[in-house]
């Protein structure tokens, strides 16, 4: 409860200057970190120490620091978003670590997410998948009244469950095949659960899966690792739904 001070931590972190660089681990020590600090605040402090020592600080992605923008990544001690459940790295706090511990930090590892620098990866592949069909084809204006089509409470809630995806990529990083099926299925289910999105559900599934395959993500073998590491608890039942949409789409071709 009350914050304590972690006197010393060893931070073993992946350093890679750019996409071409081979990369390697380096270990730094850091002292006097409050257990009430967040993991990224610990990295801020480490970085300011490195700058003062004349070294290059560690590049990592982060922005909102409240678990919703999906920018932060980090594979910490072998787990996507670290050793807590239902949190992003920015919500992880230092009370989850012990004094004297060595903490290993790596970037997301996936062929489709090349490293840009240190812990920062390029997730443009996710953008391309969504651009392939992750939307409802309506223009601004000329739409019916919001209450024109009733939607059951249950459907709206299920759609919302899937729509909670923050696009962080933890599912891909956690998967031994680097599959993006949980990510794709979340968008497909979010829209297919709503009458507005149902119209294009099949073609959407087909286009998004084709793009996913093209971009070098692996296949899904139902290990369920993605669901475990998803900070927003997106369920793998969405993958079953995606498979259904996808198969009927192929069947009707």
């Amino acid at each position, binding site marked *: 409860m009350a914050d304590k001070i972690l006197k010393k931590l060893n931070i073993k972190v992946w350093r890679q200057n750019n996409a071409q660089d081979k990369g390697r681990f380096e270990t730094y020590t850091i002292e006097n970190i409050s257990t009430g600090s967040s993991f990224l605040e*610990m990295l801020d402090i480490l970085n300011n120490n490195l700058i003062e020592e004349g*070294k290059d600080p560690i590049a990592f992605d982060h922005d*909102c620091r409240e678990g919703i923008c999906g920018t932060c990544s980090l594979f910490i001690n072998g787990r996507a978003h670290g050793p*807590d459940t239902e949190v992003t790295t920015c919500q992880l706090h230092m009370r989850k670590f012990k004094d004297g511990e060595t903490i290993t930090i790596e970037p997301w590892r996936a062929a489709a997410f090349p490293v840009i620098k240190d812990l920062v990866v390029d997730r443009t592949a996710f953008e391309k998948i969504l651009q392939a069909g992750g*939307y409802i084809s309506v223009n*601004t*204006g000329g739409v019916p009244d919001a209450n024109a089509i009733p*939607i059951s409470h249950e459907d709206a809630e299920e759609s919302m469950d899937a729509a909670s995806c923050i696009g962080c990529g933890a599912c891909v990083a956690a998967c031994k095949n680097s599959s993006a099926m949980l990510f794709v299925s979340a968008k497909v289910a979010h829209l297919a659960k709503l009458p507005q*999105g149902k119209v294009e559900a099949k073609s959407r599934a087909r286009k998004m899966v084709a793009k996913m395959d093209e971009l070098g993500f692996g296949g899904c073998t139902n290990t369920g690792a993605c669901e475990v590491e998803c900070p927003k608890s997106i369920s793998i039942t969405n993958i079953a739904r995606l498979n259904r949409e996808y198969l009927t789409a192929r069947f009707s071709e």
Partner: protein
Amino acid sequence: MSILDSKIPEGPLAEKWNKHKSNIKVVSPANKRKLEVIVVGTGLGGASAAASLAELGYKVKAFCYQDSPRRAHSIAAQGGINAAKNYQNDNDSVFRLFYDTIKGGDYRAREANVYRLAEVSPNIIDQCVAQGVPFGREYGGLLDNRSFGGVLVSRTFYARGQTGQQLLLGAYQALNRQISKGNVEMYSRHEMLDVVKIDGKARGIIARDLVSGEIKRFGAHAVVVATGGYGNVFFLSTNAMGSNGSAAWQCYKKGAMMSNPCFVQIHPTCIPVHGDQQSKLTLMSESLRNDGRVWVPKKNEDAEKLRKGEIGPNDIPEDDRDFYLERRYPSYGNLVPRDVASRAAKERCDAGFGVNAEGKAVYLDFKYAIERLGKDVIKARYGNLFQMYEKITDVDPYKEPMMIYPAIHYSMGGTWVDYNLMTTVPGLYSIGEANFSDHGANRLGASALMQGLADGYFVLPYTIGDYLADEILTPKADTNALEFEEAEKAVTGRIEKLFNIKGSKPVDYFHKKLGHVMWDYVGMSRNAEGLKKAIEMIKEIREEFWKDVKIPGELNNLNPELEKAGRVADFLDIGELMAHDALDRNESCGGHFREESVTEDGEAKRDDEQFTYVSCWEFNGEGKEPVLHKEDLVFENVKLTQRSYK
């Protein structure tokens, strides 16, 4: 000064927008294809504008500093979005939403703009539903509504505690569709560093590719800035780490005036600062004040024991608790507006009743609601917020009250725009939080999302046509023109200057120092002496910054410290302008509290006689005092009254 023409249409309030739409020019589809528009920022305003303009046929280039447009900070908005749908049959109307917004803003916003905002609000909800936003619904299948602070009707639409996320994903999907059609060129991880003017008109931007470090030129027929607010001038705020005021500041330096920069919103319910390692503050939704009771101990000695950790909140008997909002404001109680609740918390903590180790926290207690309604009801209402609180603080709010304290949240001030959302630079537009126009001196909850989407979906796509219709013969901007070359040279020069200082202290050192000055003297409570002191202190920090900042890494590689340095250099300037503005406005209104202007019982006192204007600051050259212009606010439809919540 007549240089400010707000272009508010003549005629009755309710007819202004329709009349204006029928009078402004329209561009033919064939000509739209030849016209290029740059949109900077991809939050609710930017994403909705970029998508809508591309749908109309314009060629759009969109920019964001994040790795994806979906990550803009609109994503973090929790509670909801207002709209005058009157679905609840509780006598809501466009006029009522307009009136609540004007009053909530303490009569410092433009009537015509606010009315238009209320007028287009129902269209936003229709649009979002069509895009697949999974709003909360009743069991009968129709949309549900919530109540929010400062109003008497239920007009807030929501998607759990993630409304901003869902609305942004809706706009992002529309944007993605246009990207896939080739109508929008998307530049992620690009930061706008200057706006380029040719013949007095905005014709493009200079941006840095944050991955390669390359400085690039982009041309267009118009530039739209949708880059949000400048709350991070305080270092600690609820804004994202990268949220910044730099794009708006470059526009200011190129002639776009800044209005009411001292109007910033301080949100009363945020998780308090702990120690000195904190990087940002997390908001706890305003909706919690529906069921939580705010208190501190009555006795100083109890507060002292709490601060030392010798006792816990549950050890303090009922009679020794001071429910100060209920005591001071019996009619509104815990649901007073944000500015009032924030000041009251500060007053108690300053008097020595703060309850955390730092003495800067008050309790928000759900014990009474749990006794009344049961834990399950509270869990259904606020479960995700309670989980978030517990993850951050390691305290279970079902068992112990939350600790909360006010934090910087939103910028009501921003770039001056006319009724068409155009700045004082022709062809340069500002939308969403980046402009000043709709919230006066205090924004109501759930209205930021409404404004961002109103501007992007339903206002700008019409008004920009009025300008572009006269540009159809203007050729594509020549990025080899002297103006582009000079702007690029200035940008490169500034980056090299920063990089070559090679001083001894990291950027954060200066940012934190600035933040302390801003919070202490330009924060919740301001006075002339403190503001003058702040201006001097900021000048000193600026001088030290430009002598001693240390930027590691390389210029031609991803370099977050370099990005931060540029933003903090601008925050130093923005902070100073905020202090000037706060000094000029010797009245208390909304979030701006001047200690010299209070009622006998210590409440904020507006001075309508002297200050019923929008301050408009004009850049007057580096190191020179800015020039103040005034746009007088004219109220034809509401009567100005002193707000009271007692």
